[in-house]
């Protein structure tokens, strides 16, 4: 029986908690991508860089707060800096919309043109970020490192295996739950949120109902910038802030959005966790679990991994391809928010 608990602890420590954390980060990212797709009807390749930009501003403000010895122990100071990060990112995003996307919107440009333009915006933002903070690794986490230490867990339970919960993991998961709940409440229960859904559902009829498209677009960008800043900061807190990593995150984020049904917020959340857990389950070393649960005499030479961790990024790519072949509309058949 103890073996079973040990095995479960290993699973919890190396698969479930990291999966929930990474899944929350992907879900928040995919939610932003899906909002842009649902309302503005294009795939926003600049979303990864928007996350990086928001995180960067948050880091700069965090350093300022740290220098001024302002903190919210045991929570990371970055949480205090996020609102400033959001505001600055909102301003940048609205400026980019005003001077880049609006021109093409007025011409009713094809979504492909928007997509290519967003790639241009991506390079611009990427350059801006490297110009301001540099391409290097930045660590801005402070506060208490662990909520639950593996050693404490072992002492508490008497098990051989330890379960640890880092502060960043708890913060990520809890923030994601709050943000997602707030988002759904906004979309389903406020007049503005409903007008966004109406516009996403049927642009023409929304006009005929007197819904102002400029306002819908503006609110969408504000939400997208806020989501991106929060997702980017949470990811940076959990791992570290490295500008190019956010560009690599684009693949799993788009995979999440598409797997769930692009344009569908519920799908984006589900997709985030599907991708995160798929990556972890396929690259997890099952050796320990099998040793605990298998017969006593069993000996294993390998790690019992389905895929090496190097192939992590390939997992989202494979899932993406499979979904596009079998059910192109995604799990939740989206198109409207």
């Amino acid at each position, binding site marked *: 029986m103890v073996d079973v608990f040990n095995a479960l602890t290993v699973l919890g420590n190396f698969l479930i908690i990291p999966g929930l954390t990474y899944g929350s980060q992907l879900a928040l990212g995919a939610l932003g991508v899906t909002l842009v797709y649902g309302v503005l009807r294009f795939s926003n390749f600049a979303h990864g860089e928007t996350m990086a930009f928001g995180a960067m501003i948050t880091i700069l403000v965090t350093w300022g707060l740290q220098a001024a010895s302002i903190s919210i122990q045991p929570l990371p100071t970055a949480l205090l800096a996020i609102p400033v990060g959001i505001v600055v990112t909102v301003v940048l995003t609205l400026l980019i919309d005003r001077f880049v996307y609006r021109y093409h919107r007025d011409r009713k440009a094809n979504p492909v043109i928007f997509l290519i333009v967003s790639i241009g915006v991506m390079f611009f933002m990427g350059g801006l970020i490297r110009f301001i903070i540099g391409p290097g690794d930045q660590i801005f986490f402070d506060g208490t490192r662990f909520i639950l230490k593996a050693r404490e867990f072992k002492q508490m339970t008497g098990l051989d295996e330890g379960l640890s919960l880092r502060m960043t993991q708890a913060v990520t998961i809890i923030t994601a739950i709050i943000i997602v709940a707030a988002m759904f409440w906004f979309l389903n229960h406020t007049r503005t949120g*409903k007008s966004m*859904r109406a516009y996403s559902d*049927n642009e023409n009829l*929304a*006009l*005929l*109902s*007197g819904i102002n498209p400029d306002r819908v677009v503006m609110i969408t960008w504000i939400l997208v910038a806020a989501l991106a800043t929060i997702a980017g900061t949470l990811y940076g807190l959990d791992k570290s802030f490295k500008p190019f990593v956010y560009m690599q995150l684009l693949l799993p984020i788009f995979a999440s959005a598409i797997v769930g049904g692009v344009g569908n917020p519920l799908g984006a959340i589900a997709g985030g966790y599907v991708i995160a857990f798929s990556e972890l389950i396929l690259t997890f070393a099952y050796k320990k679990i099998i040793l605990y649960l298998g017969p006593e005499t069993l000996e294993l030479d390998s790690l019992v991994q389905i895929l090496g961790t190097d192939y992590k990024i390939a997992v989202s790519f494979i899932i993406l391809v499979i979904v596009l072949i079998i059910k192109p509309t995604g799990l939740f058949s989206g198109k409207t928010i």
Partner: protein
Amino acid sequence: MSFLLGEHMTGGYGAADILHDCSIGVEKGEIAVIVGPNGAGKSTAMKAVFGMLPLRKGRIVFDGSDVTALKPEERVVKGMGFVPQTHNVFTSMTVEENLEMGAFIRTDSISDSISQVYDLFPILKEKRKQPAGELSGGQRQQVAVGRALMTHPKVLMLDEPTAGVSPIVMDELFDRIIEIARLDVAILMVEQNAKQALEIADKGYVLVQGRNRFTDTGEALLANPEVRKAFLGG
């Protein structure tokens, strides 16, 4: 001068004109019906009146003022309502949310208007929590009309409100439309069921290839042998 009047409308979607010097009008409390063959430009004329089509010539006058330069959403604020021929409900939203969106420009309480729509179309009250995309064609048309009624428009424009509904539901919808007109609303309607529609029409327009072919009272058009032969199937 009519309460709502599109005068000498000439224009189209691209280089070629679809409408040629086409004029359409309706009075308060009256029903005007536009009939004509497929592709005659009936829907195009409706869009032109609502400001969804660039006009090269002509003007739109509503309630004594020239609205030619106004955007569709500004015409909604002025008191015009439009139910397009297709895609006329928010399919992913519930019936009640559709009605709420219809009232988007209003800042006062809308619960009275919602119950009025439910009185007019009782089935919608039953289905109010259901996404409009899951309703039958006839129920969907009722949602579409209900949505447009939520602003209490002074003129209601309907493009084929009875498309795809059974004869019984069609009669019922026509009865509801007459009820709405009695509330002193001007109704401008395109209809494929020309005979039935002209029977309830105060005024009828027969459009052919973007031009006014016949314009008369509904009764007179029904009695006109030429109209009967060419457009009403004898």
